[in-house]
């Protein structure tokens, strides 16, 4: 059904939305200023052309069925950020204290004063030397570019159209990057400001790295509807190993559309983790492609939405070749009138025999007005594979609750502990200890300061309890 719809829309292009026209105008403003444009010109032109032809998201588009982009439609006055520095208070209170190479971007622009010196292999596109330029030319747009055009996210195209600069992390053959690379993306409270972030990660054969992408807001000002559009492309060479963590902890007024695309070559290993809080619009796509035999990935995700927030994860794992492994576990808690979407697709190609793929999605709804749309999709074209998937929307485990109460713990406290534990369990996959400790404390604080993420709903079948 969706294919027919796409065809009909291609033959009679829908008129562009006001935001689309405005966004393309913004791209043109940038082009005038671009000085190193040759490296990026084809990416920008192709992105703009795709974005211009794309159907604006609405309920009739399967991939945007449950998530409203209304927040962007009212953002026709969006402007580029001038670039500023992060406040000392923001850096002191919101950054994760850990031994790492830290790079801070404020509204999309590098804040050199708050950042460490970039080690060998890491540079902005605009400062690329010959080697880095070769790496960028060989890889930029190539990972994301392999997505089936019918499934392409128009914001990925827009990211291309808007790419004026970007960050390259290149780890040479057999090099182990000891220090984690900690990328901090600060959104300031400026009204209507737009940031476009493009990151390219290339791990050559046998290389190893740990990368943390941390999105935050500098100040909690209401009415901030700044828009951040990100695309991270990751190429993992044979035997390369990457720990990738992405935290979206911005203020709830923020608009964030982001994507992470990864290609795994032979025997490459990806350990992915993502945690997002909802906002007025938050949409994150992961596209993970097994391109070489023996590759394996584990991928854990958490989403928390309350108030009127929405959060939407679309993940797609493609097994294009045989003998690869995928383990995906996502959990979410949705409260108040918030809305969450989890669309997890695993696509096993005809040749991808001996695939092992498991996906699990569990949700807690903490309010009768909260909404969760969970949709695991398994498309299997090979016959010798082991796959499993499951999705549940449930309440807290009554036996566990009874166990805590029977030790004298109050029902309110017991429910907080169990709701926290439901999420905290997934944090155990984080191998950088200071990161795990910080995130656990953040999570604990979130659960204790606001009961909207605590499941206080009693199951409907609980009528047998004594008065």
């Amino acid at each position, binding site marked *: 059904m969706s294919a027919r719809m796409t065809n009909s829309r291609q033959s009679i292009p829908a008129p562009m939305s006001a935001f689309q026209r405005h966004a393309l105008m913004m791209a043109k403003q940038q082009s005038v200023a671009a000085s190193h444009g040759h490296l990026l010109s084809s990416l920008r032109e192709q992105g703009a052309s795709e974005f211009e032809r794309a159907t604006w998201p609405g309920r009739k588009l399967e991939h945007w069925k449950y998530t409203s982009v209304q927040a962007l439609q009212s953002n026709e006055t969006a402007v580029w950020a001038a670039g500023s520095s992060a406040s000392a208070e923001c850096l002191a209170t919101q950054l994760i204290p850990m031994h790492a190479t830290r790079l801070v971007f404020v509204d999309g622009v590098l804040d050199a004063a708050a950042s460490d010196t970039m080690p060998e292999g890491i540079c902005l596109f605009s400062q690329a030397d010959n080697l880095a330029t070769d790496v960028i030319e060989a890889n930029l747009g190539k990972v994301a570019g392999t997505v089936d055009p019918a499934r392409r996210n128009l914001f990925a195209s827009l990211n291309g159209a808007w790419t004026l600069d970007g960050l390259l992390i290149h780890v040479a053959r057999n090099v182990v990057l000891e220090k984690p690379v900690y990328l901090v993306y600060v959104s300031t409270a400026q009204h209507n400001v737009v940031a476009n972030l493009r990151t390219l990660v290339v791990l050559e054969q046998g290389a190893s790295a740990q990368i943390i992408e941390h999105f935050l807001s500098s100040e909690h000002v209401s009415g901030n509807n700044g828009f951040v559009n990100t695309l991270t492309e990751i190429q993992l060479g044979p035997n390369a190993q990457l720990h990738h963590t992405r935290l979206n902890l911005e203020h709830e007024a923020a608009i964030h559309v982001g994507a992470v695309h990864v290609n795994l070559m032979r025997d490459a290993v990806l350990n992915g983790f993502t945690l997002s809080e909802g906002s007025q619009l938050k949409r994150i796509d992961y596209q993970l492609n097994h391109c070489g035999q023996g590759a394996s990935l584990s991928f854990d995700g958490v989403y928390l939405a309350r108030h009127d927030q929405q959060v939407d994860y679309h993940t797609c794992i493609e097994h294009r070749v045989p003998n690869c492994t995928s383990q995906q576990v996502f959990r979410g808690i949705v409260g108040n009138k918030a809305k969450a979407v989890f669309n997890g697709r695993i696509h096993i190609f005809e040749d991808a025999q001996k695939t092992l793929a498991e996906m699990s999605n569990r949700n807690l709804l903490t309010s009768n007005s909260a909404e969760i749309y969970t949709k695991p999709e398994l498309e299997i074209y090979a016959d010798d594979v082991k796959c499993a998937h499951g999705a549940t929307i449930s309440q807290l485990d009554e036996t566990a609750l009874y*166990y805590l109460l*029977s*030790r*004298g*713990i109050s029902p309110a406290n017991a429910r907080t502990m169990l709701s926290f*534990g439901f999420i905290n369990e997934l944090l155990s996959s984080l191998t950088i200890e200071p990161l795990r400790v910080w995130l656990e404390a953040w999570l604990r604080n979130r659960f204790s300061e606001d009961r909207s993420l605590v499941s206080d709903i009693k199951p409907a079948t609980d009528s047998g*309890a004594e008065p």
Partner: protein
Amino acid sequence: MLDIHELVAKVEGKQILNGLNLSIKPGEVHAIMGPNGAGKSTLGNVLTGRAGYDVVSGDVTFNGKNLFELEVEERAREGVFLAFQYPVEIPGVSNMEFLKASVDARRKHLGLPELSSFDFMKLARECSQKVSLDPAFLKRGVNEGFSGGEKKRNEIMQMMLLEPRLCILDETDSGLDIDALQVVAAGVNAMRDSARSFIVVTHYQRLLDFIVPDYVHVLANGRIVRTGDKELAKELEAKGYGWLEKEGV
């Protein structure tokens, strides 16, 4: 301390306890034995107030209070403790956090100040050593990945930390090897005193060699059909429960 009078209770609509009477004085240890389905586990769950275990009639007085007017957590704070037959695994919630929250709640009820993290940690380490549990388990999720024996020892450790007035051990011996059984029994015996009472629910006489009871009761069809001393347990071990039917009870 505990007076159970003509207790009738249902589980999922099915009547399991049929007029049970039992009276326990401070310092006494009462063993309850009986065939499967007699209502042994139901008794523990009814006394602690588990949802789904519905009291139809009868009453239970605990230290002068009507037990059925108290919520699950209030009964626990008053000093009722159930060592679970199947302790629950709760990944994501650390043992440390769980145990401290339990002890804090009990101490608050008794009008005692909250223990500092340092003092609690010291106490928890001492107790874990008494039941031969590696203190490293305190950082792990509640019962997460524990063997059957470790789970039971964790129950006894909780009992030591909470210092309850009435301890109900629900088949704590099931699934234990002889070494673990001795550890558990030593823990229980160390806690016996003139003010604390125990209900020891078990299938096997073996446990009662280590935890010597003052009374042994036979529970069948939701009622206590015979009461004796520890010799009754040995008789049951030898004869089984077949005689119950012959005697028409």
